[in-house]
């Protein structure tokens, strides 16, 4: 430890004196200047002015990679020799050639595994919600809750093992819950970066599987007013929506406002009945009753920036109301699965979520130091509504909001300070301090999770070193102190229920949660390196420790899970999850080929999971008690991505292999639950040349394949494999002042009946959505 710190301190002292400068100009395919493009040589960065000109000073001698980013997407790169070259004239290739790719791998010298997904990619793959729109990224899967809600899974790790952040503040919803989705407006995210594996240094232990970073802080490119209106509609749930974006910039100030609404009806599945717990439940008109929903969002952002200072304030709201299928919400019920003639209404049971967030980001630049200060406050209010029912005859109907079953009010405040220090162009160090405070309050006539207060303080340091032009090294360290204070809860109704039945341990059973006051100290390390052998081949390797504090639900949940008849019980004796992960990435890029392969392995000394106890729950209506427990676990797999471009064709494919096991007494034991199967995705795309007013017209055919998932945990079902097909057509109509983007997509072309092993409705034998035809029209204006 000490040795390591000394190395860091030693590095701080290194500085390189350099005097050279490079000037240049960036223009587009029509030789029009491109303003506000970000031009970088290593850590030296500048923006082009209105004439597309830029200038970089204080550069050392050597051969460097010069990159150009627009809206934070890498659009151009070249190698330059300093001081031989002093002026660079950059002409960007046409948009269709470079920007239309599904995924752009950054070739920045990053040692970790990062995939950047632009807003354009998200719209192209839009599937009703954010996580499900990202599943073409190798290694990312989604757990879907109906047709408009989903949560991400990275390499089989989900829930509290994947962190989602927006503008560097971690999104705090109710990640622990299987029926909770991500409160993010997918269509209006500006850029998404997916970091697999090592995210723990900047985001803490919750980022074991990876981080989904949403960047919604891009500065409008030009002065004046601009924006777009996007309309979408789809057949599978007769859903439609509207998303409006507008931005205004004047000199150093800007304002952005975004609004969206969407509404969808019960979704269609390719079956007329489902078999759940030996009961055949009819699916009238192939529509799953009460799975309709709606979502609305609003986003307001204002900012100021100059050469040394930037401040951006964002306010956002996302609200949704989504029905649950009543036929399998508990005991199978044929009657309640019958359609009531209205496909659009949301009836009991349903969930309602409102997420409100304020984030302020400040950035000062002074010489080699850049200071960052981020402050965030967010409130997640999630309610489950279900017509009042009780499993204890003695429970009175509440007088106020009698049908509110579960009510969670989670408030989180974050403050983060960070300084990035450049020591010459070879070394960069970041040192940060983060404080996160969270308060959870509960209500409703049922009980699942107690109230708690949690405080977390983290300090971290990261260092990036360009050892040579071809070799980079990253090192990071983080220390977290977490204080968890869980409130006790004594269930009077349950106490009376047991007392009336003459139970001797009524008082014990009625203590749904005990007071817990625990603190945890954890430390994480990460090391990464990247080496570029030549222009074609490069390789990366990372190694990091993982250390995650148990969540309140893991420590002290105590209630019945709908559908599964599962009495889930927390375990206050859990220790923090510990382990390590490592991965290697090998990439080959030559001419029109791009191939990427990265095997990885995770080892947990104590993976926290829900273990079937073999005992019946004492609670009425309860099946088995499941207790949170820990065991050793091994996860491994790889992702493979290949892409080939020739003429107007683009062929690409991804393949994901993953496997995981618990290890008990040195022996291989059960697989972990909700593990996605081995899967592949492939597409063939043809881009037409510009035809009259139609530009960038693209036709794409794709398939998605999943193997049978027979690696199942106890009480999971084997999920059969499947192949589905898709079609995509898109074009931009270029008229004088009117240039709409039009996109038509068909998913599940053959209306195949298949199951997603990780989806919420899988456990109740409900297949995934049937054939879906979706139309998106986006009209930009300025």
């Amino acid at each position, binding site marked *: 430890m000490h040795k390591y710190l000394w190395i860091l301190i030693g590095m701080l002292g290194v500085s390189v004196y350099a005097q050279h400068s490079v000037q240049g100009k960036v223009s587009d395919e029509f030789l029009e200047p491109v303003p506000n493009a970000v031009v970088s040589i290593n850590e030296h960065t500048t923006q082009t002015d209105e004439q597309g000109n830029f200038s970089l000073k204080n550069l050392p001698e050597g051969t460097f990679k010069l990159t150009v980013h627009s809206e934070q997407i890498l659009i151009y790169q070249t190698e330059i020799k300093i001081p031989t070259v002093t002026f660079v004239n950059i002409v960007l290739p046409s948009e269709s050639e470079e920007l239309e790719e599904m995924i752009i791998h950054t070739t920045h010298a990053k040692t970790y595994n990062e995939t950047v997904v632009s807003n354009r990619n998200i719209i192209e793959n839009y599937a009703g919600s954010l996580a499900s729109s990202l599943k073409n990224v190798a290694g990312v899967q989604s757990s879907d809750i109906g047709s408009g809600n989903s949560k991400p899974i990275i390499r089989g790790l989900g829930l509290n093992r994947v962190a989602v952040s927006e503008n560097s503040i971690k999104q705090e919803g109710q990640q622990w819950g299987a029926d909770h989705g991500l409160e993010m407006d997918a269509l209006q995210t500006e850029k998404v970066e997916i970091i697999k594996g090592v995210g723990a240094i900047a985001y803490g232990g919750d980022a074991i599987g990876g981080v989904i970073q949403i960047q919604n802080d891009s500065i409008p490119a030009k002065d004046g007013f601009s924006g777009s209106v996007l309309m979408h509609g789809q057949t599978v749930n007769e859903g439609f929506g509207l998303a409006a974006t507008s931005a205004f910039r004047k000199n150093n100030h800007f304002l952005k406002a975004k609004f969206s609404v969407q509404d969808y009806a019960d979704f269609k599945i390719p079956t007329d009945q489902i078999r759940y*717990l*030996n*009961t055949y439940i009819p699916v009238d008109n192939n529509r799953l009753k009460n799975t309709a929903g709606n979502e609305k969002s609003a986003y307001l952002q204002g900012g100021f920036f100059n050469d040394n200072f930037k401040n951006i304030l964002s306010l956002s709201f996302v609200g949704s109301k989504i029905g649950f299928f*009543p036929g399998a*919400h*508990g*005991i*199978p*019920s044929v*009657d*309640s699965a019958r359609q009531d003639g209205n496909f659009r209404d949301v*009836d*009991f*049971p349903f969930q309602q979520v409102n997420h409100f967030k304020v984030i302020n980001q400040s950035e000062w630049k002074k010489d080699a130091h850049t200071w960052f200060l981020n402050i965030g406050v967010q409130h997640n209010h999630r309610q489950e509504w*279900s*017509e009042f*029912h*009780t*499993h204890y*005859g003695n429970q009175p109907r509440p007088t106020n909001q009698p049908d509110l079953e579960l009510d969670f009010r989670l408030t989180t405040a974050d403050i983060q300070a960070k300084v990035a220090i450049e020591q010459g162009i070879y070394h960069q160090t970041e040192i940060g301090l983060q404080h996160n405070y969270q308060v959870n309050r509960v209500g409703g006539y049922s009980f699942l999770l107690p109230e708690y207060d949690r405080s977390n303080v983290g300090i971290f340091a990261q260092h990036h070193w360009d050892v040579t032009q071809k070799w980079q*090294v990253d090192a990071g360290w983080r220390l977290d102190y977490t204080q968890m204070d869980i409130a006790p809860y004594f269930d009077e109704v349950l106490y009376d229920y047991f007392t009336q039945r003459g139970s001797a341990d009524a008082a014990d059973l009625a203590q749904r949660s005990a007071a817990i006051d625990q603190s945890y100290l954890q430390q994480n390390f990460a*090391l990464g*390196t990247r080496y570029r052998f030549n222009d074609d081949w490069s390789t990366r*390797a*990372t*190694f990091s420790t993982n250390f995650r504090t148990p969540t309140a639900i893991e420590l002290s949940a105590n209630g019945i899970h*709908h559908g599964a*008849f599962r009495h889930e019980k927390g375990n206050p004796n859990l220790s923090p999850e510990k382990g390590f992960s*490592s*991965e*290697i990435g090998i990439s080959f890029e030559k001419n029109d080929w791009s191939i990427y392969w990265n*095997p990885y*392995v995770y*080892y947990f000394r104590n993976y926290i999971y829900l*273990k*079937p*106890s*073999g*005992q*019946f729950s004492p609670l*009425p*209506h309860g*099946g*088995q008690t499941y207790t949170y427990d820990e065991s050793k676990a*091994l996860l*491994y797999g790889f992702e493979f991505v290949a892409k080939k471009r020739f003429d107007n064709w683009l062929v690409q494919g991804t393949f994901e292999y993953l*496997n995981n096991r618990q290890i008990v007494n040195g*022996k*291989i*034991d*059960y697989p972990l639950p909700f593990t996605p199967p081995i899967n592949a995705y492939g597409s063939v795309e043809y881009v037409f040349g510009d035809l009259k007013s139609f530009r960038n017209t693209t036709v794409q055919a794709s398939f998605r394949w999943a193997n049978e998932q027979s*690696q*199942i*945990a*106890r*009480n*999971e079902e084997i999920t059969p494999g499947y192949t589905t097909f898709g079609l995509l057509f898109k074009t931009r109509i270029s008229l004088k002042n009117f240039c709409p983007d039009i996109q038509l997509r068909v998913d599940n072309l053959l209306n195949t009946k298949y199951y997603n092993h990780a989806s919420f409705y899988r456990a109740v034998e409900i297949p995934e959505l049937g054939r879906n035809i979706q139309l998106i029209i986006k009209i930009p204006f300025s």
Partner: protein
Amino acid sequence: MKKTAILSIAALSFIACNNDDNSSLDQEKPTVEIITPTDHQEYEPGDNINIQALLADNESLASYKIEIHSAGDGHTHSHSVSSADDHDHVEFHYEADYEINGTTYEVNQTIPIPENAEEEHYHVGIFVLDSSGNQNQQFIEIFIGHEHDHHD
């Protein structure tokens, strides 16, 4: 760096050597088949419910639980039939669990319905566990009440 490389190589070799041997794991759920009562069977208060069911598991059964409770607590629109005079009636609720072993088991049990049981629809459920913690359950719905009260 060398250490990382070695560890990674070790990890990869582990992947290569690992063969998925599931033979010692039991992922098969026990089964439960309720023979009586049959779905929608009708009883009068004071009758006996004879519960017969077949339980089976590929390895070893561990326990089962019988539960009878009102079906009027469904998680959606309840359609319970209220009795004319609620005060004289009691909610009928029955719950009991038993340890068993072997690969098959026959449940044969008689449960009396109280004379003053609330007249309505009830769920009869049997949960079964095997020794590995695999679980299964089956529910059927019965009606308790006098013939003339039953408007379904």
